[in-house]
């Protein structure tokens, strides 16, 4: 008996967590997928009706807006955060004396809650009292910077705050990558008289391709899940101008009482995440097993 117990102990230790994940991750995804195919409104119904919820989603201007916003926000956020992160990493890689302190300063926003970040930027961008008022106070009376309340520009304030929060983290990723490039190759290139910028563009950066991929995955994942920042900074407004899929889903689930729409929008979010993450994880796991 004890021998049997001893032999099966590892499985028994892992079992509760695994069962929990099966139910609370995969079972729940299944439930959401099922409900997304029904006519559920305030209460879930379980008769499958096909893709009506997805059709409603496609016809909804608000969802359309949310997807457009996700695309604009995601593209800008990912590109700028990666460019800025790379630039900062290269600057910091020049044997800077105060590197530790500077790195700490660049990275601290990552420790903050998105709600805190949103609150801070909401205040800074406040047209009446923030940057706009400050520049006007300097004598530039015609200066306007009202993006946060301007339906056409509000989405860019989300981009600004998100970049502020995450670019330091991208820098840390890239800095680790720069440090892992073989120092011998760089030295050889320098001995050959190749200028530093060429060493970066033709040797160092190309060899960091996997890190670009990781950074992209992390940022894309952050972008799709963005919820708190929008709630704190603009509340999805003005109107629906800064709605993202995550805020749409939340509104349907908890304030509109439209479970069918909530479930179908959540499923689309998951598919977008999986389209990005699954190929990556799959190749990672395979590379590891080989």
């Amino acid at each position, binding site marked *: 008996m004890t021998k049997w117990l*001893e032999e099966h*102990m590892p499985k028994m*230790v*892992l079992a509760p*967590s*695994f069962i*929990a*994940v*099966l139910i*609370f*991750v*995969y079972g729940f995804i299944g*439930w959401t997928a099922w*409900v997304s195919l029904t006519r559920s409104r305030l209460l879930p119904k379980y008769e499958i009706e096909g893709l009506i919820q997805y059709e409603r989603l496609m016809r909804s201007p608000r969802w359309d807006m949310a997807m457009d916003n996700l695309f604009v926000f995601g593209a800008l956020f990912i590109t700028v955060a990666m460019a800025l992160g790379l630039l*900062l990493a290269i*600057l910091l890689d020049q044997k*800077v004396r105060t590197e530790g302190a*500077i790195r*700490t*300063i660049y*990275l601290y926003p*990552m*420790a*903050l*809650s998105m*709600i*805190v970040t949103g609150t*801070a*930027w*909401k*205040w800074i961008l406040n047209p009446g*009292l*923030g940057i706009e008022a*400050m520049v006007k106070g300097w004598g530039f009376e015609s200066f306007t910077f009202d993006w946060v309340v301007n339906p056409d520009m509000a989405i860019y304030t989300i981009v600004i705050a998100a970049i502020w929060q995450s670019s330091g*983290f991208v820098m*840390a*990723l890239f800095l*680790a990558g720069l440090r892992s490039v073989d120092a011998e190759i760089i030295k050889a290139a320098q001995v050959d008289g190749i200028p530093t910028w060429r060493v970066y563009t033709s040797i160092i950066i190309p060899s960091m391709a996997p890190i670009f991929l990781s950074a992209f*995955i*992390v940022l894309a*994942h952050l972008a*799709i899940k963005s919820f*708190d920042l929008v*709630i*704190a900074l603009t509340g999805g407004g003005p109107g629906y101008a800064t709605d993202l*899929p995550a805020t749409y*889903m*939340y509104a349907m*689930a*908890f304030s509109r009482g439209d*479970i069918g729409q909530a479930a179908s929008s*959540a499923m689309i*979010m*998951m598919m977008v*995440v*999986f389209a990005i993450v699954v190929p*990556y*994880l799959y190749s*990672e*796991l395979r590379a590891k097993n080989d």
Partner: protein
Amino acid sequence: MTDLAISPARSQRRTGRIALRWLLYTMLGLFALYYLMPLFVMITTSLKSLEEIRTGDLVALPREVTFDAWKTAWSGACTGVQCDGVRPYFWNSVLIAVPAVSISTLLGAMNGYVVAQWRFRGANIIFSLMLFGCFIPFQVVLLPMARILGLMGLAGTIPGLIFTHVIYGIGFTTLFFRNYYVTIPAELVKAAKVDGAGFFRIFWSIFLPLSLPIIVVTVIWQFTQIWNDFLFGVSFSQAGTQPITVALNNIVNSTTGVKEYNVDMAAAIIAALPTLLVYVVAGKYFIRGLTAGSVKG
């Protein structure tokens, strides 16, 4: 002769290099200002009176430092109908984070130990399935979780939030410990088994003593995630059990009365303090968690 010919060029290169260094440090300094500016504005705003905020400059230092806003934020600011400040919600967050972090870290350590060192058939598939669970957008589990918490009688309670955070934290904690334990040679377990040590004995007296760094990384990661969580907090809490992020958002976006920006900023800093403190004290481990957590499987 040659010396004379070379030295101007050399000194020119030297000046060039010094100029470049200056440029470099200037750029680094400007970026540092960019990252620090919001924190600076938050702190100075929280120390100003409302009167000064209305008339003064965003980046100006307070003419007269007052801690009234901090007092109000801590124990008097209104979140909807209640006006107790963020204090009760701060403690809610502590009550949620401490057990959730401890339980998920312990489970992660045990799971990681099994997956890395006691490989059985299917262990890899189980691990992959758990890993995929880390990457789902939580929107996809919100609706069923709300129902299950209701069925369990945990809807709107702190134990309900602890439970949720533990369940959706296991994937990451397991990943952290698995990646750490996988570097420990399998011979160690084999030798210990020959000596008659069992599963728990080996964990307790060999693995746990080696685990301090990864425990620190995991605890910091989980604490930051759970303290900063908003989605679960806003979905599964009710008046009285809300975590601080939800309370902060309610204070900032409450539409009743005069907008007290200094109180908003003080409340935001209070909400940020615990994780900032962890970051300042243990930044190295914080970064390690971030890079390990960044899908580097």
